[in-house]
């Protein structure tokens, strides 16, 4: 089963929930799709690391063949090409690798070169296979890294936990496309509600079964919980605001591996998620 963990915004505990669920499961795959700021490996500390580059295709014109007709320049919707001083220049950061220039050049002057934009790192951490995508600094979009991460994971038949990027934009949509179930993590503040509302809208748009985990719960009133109750959203579990848990987390430790109390907490959550997901998929058909 593929479970995507999302939150509308960073810092709500998305990584905490996904690494701990993965660690509590018998065998799991953890995929860090937060390619701008991947953090999961800091907790899981995988061993036997393998690196694999992620490249995109970048056009390159052969100056001997190019006649300067500018067909390619006129075509490119992203203004990634310019013909200046008898040479075709490619602005690599804005090229989307659509292949149009290559396709339409009347002289067949354009070929493709690879340009590395990021990295996929995989390793093992006990029961968890850890796969992280990392976008190079200065790149505009991590989508190609996410695409590759998820394409490679399609064959997995273990439980897969996808730690999604924050927000609700293109990168998040890419991350939840294949997921069987979405787990939304929310904080007990009005910011939390606002962020939750956004991912709530997103999962409904994609018609994904989903439920909410309330994180950092204090004794006080919880606007995020109120929101769930008002909208009849399944609350899968509550994680209390707990200094010990917070400290373990900030030190990069996995609570469910360190302490039976937390292992139970996350195992229970995992069971609930599984039950919910099965139930949802059953009622879909």
């Amino acid at each position, binding site marked *: 089963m593929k479970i995507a963990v999302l939150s*509308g*915004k*960073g*810092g*709500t505990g998305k*990584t905490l929930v996904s690494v701990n669920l993965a660690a509590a499961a018998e065998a799991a795959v953890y995929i860090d799709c937060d390619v*701008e*700021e991947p*953090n999961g490996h*800091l*907790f899981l500390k995988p061993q036997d690391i393998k690196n694999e580059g992620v490249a995109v295709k970048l056009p390159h014109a052969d100056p001997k063949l190019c006649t300067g007709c500018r067909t390619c320049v006129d*075509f490119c*919707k*992203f203004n990634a090409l310019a013909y200046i001083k008898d040479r075709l220049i490619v602005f690599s950061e804005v090229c*989307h*690798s*659509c*292949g*149009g220039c290559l*396709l*339409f050049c009347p002289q067949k002057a354009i070929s493709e070169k690879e340009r590395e934009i990021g990295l996929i790192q995989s390793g093992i951490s006990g029961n968890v296979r850890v796969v992280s995508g990392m*976008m190079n*600094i*200065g*790149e*505009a*979009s*991590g*989508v190609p890294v996410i695409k590759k991460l998820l394409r490679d994971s399609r064959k997995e038949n273990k439980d897969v936990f996808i730690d999604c*990027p*924050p*927000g*609700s*934009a*293109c990168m998040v*949509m890419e991350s939840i496309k294949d997921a069987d179930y979405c787990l939304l993590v929310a*904080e*007990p*503040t*009005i*910011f939390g509600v*606002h*962020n939750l509302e*956004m991912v709530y*809208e*997103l999962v409904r*748009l994609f018609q994904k079964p989903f439920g909410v985990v309330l994180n950092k719960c*204090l004794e*006080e*009133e919880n*606007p995020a919980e109120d929101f769930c109750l008002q909208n009849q959203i399944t609350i899968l579990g509550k994680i209390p605001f707990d*200094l010990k848990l*917070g*400290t373990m*987390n*900030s*030190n*990069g430790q996995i609570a469910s591996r360190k302490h039976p109390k937390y292992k139970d907490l996350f195992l229970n959550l995992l069971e609930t998620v599984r039950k919910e997901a099965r139930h949802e998929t059953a009622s879909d058909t």
Partner: protein
Amino acid sequence: MKQLLILSGKGGTGKTTIAGAFIKLAESRAYADCDVDAPNLHLIRPHASPARRSDYYGMRKAVINEDSCKSCGFCRQNCCFEAINESNGKYVVDAYACEGCGVCEAVCPIGAVSLQPTVAGELMLYKEDGVFSTARLKMGSGTSGKLVTEVKKQLKQEAIDADLAVIDGSPGIGCPVIASLSGVDMVLIVAEPSLSGLSDMERIIKTAEKFKMKIGVCVNKYDTNKELARKIETFCQERELPFVGKIPFDNAAIKAINRGQSIVDVDCPAGRAATKVFYKTLLIMNS
């Protein structure tokens, strides 16, 4: 108008909370929320009058005219983004996957595909005592960098006489952040004392340095892990980055926020610390 941008590498570090405090302290007459994916600043800057709203058009997207399509499949074969689906001989563009590159339009032998403008979000402008520029990207639109540029343009056009603009940045290190950096006088980085916070901070510092920005660093919720907070401070010393202070974790701050206030509206430890951070930041920005 000087521009101070607040960044964190990741959300949830308290960037918006600090931005809210700074706006109040500076009595700023110009501020903006560049986190167009998940804007939050308006929640603690309540406005009496409604915003002036305008549609934001992103990239154009492909649309297939069902009636003229001959189902030859060329468009699908040539789309590099797997954005065209076929079922029972019918070809349809998945607007979420389409990047608007125009290849399908150009290869279709009978002109059944066209690129059409799509609303990708909404710009909002509040004008009362001050100018507040913000926006909200529509679900699933991919051009947040351009919308950030629009938010900043709107701010600049409307707030000509303000001295200081406080800008709440967006999380990450990608295109929206890069777009928010342009024209800024200083970047304040809000770090969290955790291993992930440290890693996020290093990545955002590298990004800001790449664009030759003046940088200051502060730690929020420092007492949730004092050891790592110290580590951040040492890191800044070693790298000769100005460290502008630390703010404690504070329940009173959460309560203030939930009431739609800023943390300097109430007398609390977090608010007092944020005030110090503010003045130190100003000093560096103006030096």
